[in-house]
């Protein structure tokens, strides 16, 4: 017997959480795009999607974040530090790859200097993951040693029932346990079986890849030029990535007042590393693509002991020129040793 959340109790569940002061965010399909957004009822949710086009990262590290509000007058400047809204949130129906993405980014935002903007949002959020029932050609979680039912980054884990009538439900963190306590009357004990987890084939050998990347001799390999020749430097892959975290800080406003903001930026952009002098350490698209791969599968691993990729496959799925991490890592796997 396991605890289950019957599908027909989901509306009551949302209502109970809302009553407890939470906003509930779930996958939705709005204005020709799928993303996580606030929902009021189960029918607002698009839970059948394999994966939303946008990641939940957007709600922890938004594309533009106000940092400081300032007002300038002659010989005086008023400034006020802005903080993210302190609203309790539940993310319902997160895919394991997106939940893992949050866990992967935690050490980056936390090492030494703690990024409060990230952690305030992390601390007021509960992640309810739903194991995948389906995968597509681009999914690659197993290649990065995760799985379609990984609990990494999750507080509550749901597994779809084979009958389609609900989910097996299990708290996998203290925060998750506390959340389930708020809806325990709605949960039932049942012997219903969970649907099988989809098979996601391993597309590359990540160990072999990491070994190749770690060899300094390969840093200036012709490989990088060849593999990235068609990259147009659009940066979609970085903006849709659940783990990419690069940003810019910009002041915006008029002469007398404005806001200093933290905005998404991308290693794919030529201006990203350009010095004022005009010197650019990464002055070709191939060096920028190399940076992206090295950062994810070598540097990040060295600093935080984990690769900065959760295998969602959005980079390839969305790429206008059909590139992506999978192709590059496959090619590295198959290089003659």
């Amino acid at each position, binding site marked *: 017997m396991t605890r289950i959340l019957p599908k027909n109790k989901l509306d009551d569940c949302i209502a109970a959480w809302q009553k407890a002061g939470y906003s509930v965010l779930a996958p939705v399909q709005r204005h020709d795009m799928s993303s996580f957004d606030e929902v009021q009822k189960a029918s607002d949710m698009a839970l059948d999607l394999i994966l939303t086009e946008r990641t939940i990262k957007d709600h922890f590290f938004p594309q533009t974040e106000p940092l400081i509000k300032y007002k300038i007058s002659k010989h005086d400047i008023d400034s006020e530090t802005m903080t993210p809204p302190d609203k309790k949130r539940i993310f319902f129906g997160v895919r394991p790859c997106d939940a893992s993405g949050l866990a992967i980014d935690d050490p980056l935002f936390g*090492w030494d200097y703690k990024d409060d903007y990230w952690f305030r949002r992390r601390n007021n959020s509960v992640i309810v993951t739903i194991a995948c029932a389906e995968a597509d050609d681009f999914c690659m979680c197993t290649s990065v040693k995760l799985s379609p039912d990984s609990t990494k980054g999750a507080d509550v884990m749901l597994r779809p029932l084979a009958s389609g009538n609900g989910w097996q439900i299990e708290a996998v963190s203290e925060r998750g346990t506390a959340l389930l306590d708020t809806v325990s009357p709605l949960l039932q004990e049942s012997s219903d079986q969970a649907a099988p987890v989809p098979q996601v084939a391993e597309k590359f050998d990540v160990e072999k890849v990491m070994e190749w990347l770690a060899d300094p001799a390969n840093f200036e390999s012709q490989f990088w030029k060849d593999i990235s020749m068609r990259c147009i430097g659009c940066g979609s892959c970085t903006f849709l990535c659940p783990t990419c*975290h690069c940003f810019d800080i910009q002041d915006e*406003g008029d002469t007398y007042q404005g806001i200093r903001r933290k905005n998404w930026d991308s*290693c794919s952009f030529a201006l990203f590393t350009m010095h004022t002098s005009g010197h650019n350490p990464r002055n070709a698209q191939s060096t920028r693509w190399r940076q992206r791969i090295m950062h994810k599968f070598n540097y990040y691993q060295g600093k935080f002991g984990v690769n900065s990729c959760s295998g969602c496959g959005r980079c390839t799925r969305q790429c206008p020129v059909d590139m992506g991490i999978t192709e590059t890592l496959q090619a590295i796997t198959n290089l003659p040793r």
Partner: protein
Amino acid sequence: MIYTPFPMRVVSKRAEAPGVNTLKLEFVRQEDHEFFKANYQTGMFGLYGIYGEGESTFCVASPETRKDYIECTFRQSGRVTSTLANADAGDIVTFRGPYGNRFPIEQFEGKNLLFIAGGIALPPTRSVIWSCLDQREKYKDVTIVYGARTVADLVYKHELEEWKQRDDVNLVLTVDPGGETPDWTDHVGFVPTVLEQAAPSPENTIAVLCGPPIMIKFTLIALEKLGFTAENVYTTLENRMKCGVGKCGRCNVGSVYICKEGPVFTAAEVQAMPQADL
């Protein structure tokens, strides 16, 4: 919060060279000053800013032995530095830091010091120079080799004069060929060449080298010829930065985050980095 800077009041501004200015900044709030005093060590950098324009990264040019104020020297080139250059005494600017690592000057004690700088890279070197000169008794011979493109481009001219007058400092000044004025009595030639001619002994000597990449490259060759080992040569790297605290993802050279693990490195450490990423 993490990205909130300290407000700083401009005490004075000094024109150093064409397009180069030094701002002397004092703390507006006591607690910020206490924080700075407790944390600043020579070699560290900060993000200097003006609300409405943004922030720009450069070193703290004042030494760790003088923490009542912050001096910064910068060339006017982009949006932020152009506005900073227009700041006047009394204006409020911002400072975020001090960030990064430092020159381990206590390890330099009892040794000869050789400072080599080119152009606008004297400021980071100057921070170490004064940190050592202010406790002169701890170090042996001090040699400063400084060169700029032209006489006008030499920064801290009043301090160069001071160092020249001191008998416990050996100052070697040079300008690039064609950059001399009729009354110029010091060297004419590129820093690596002049350094080789000055031929300081590598024996028990630490070299601190700052300059544009091309100067660093050839000066390292000259130092090697003189018998310096890469472990005894220190330098400071500057890359484009936005956060200064290891998050924004742009200053790394290979796996090394300049803002966190640097900006101070030995030449040996720099040589171990992927050169194509520098």
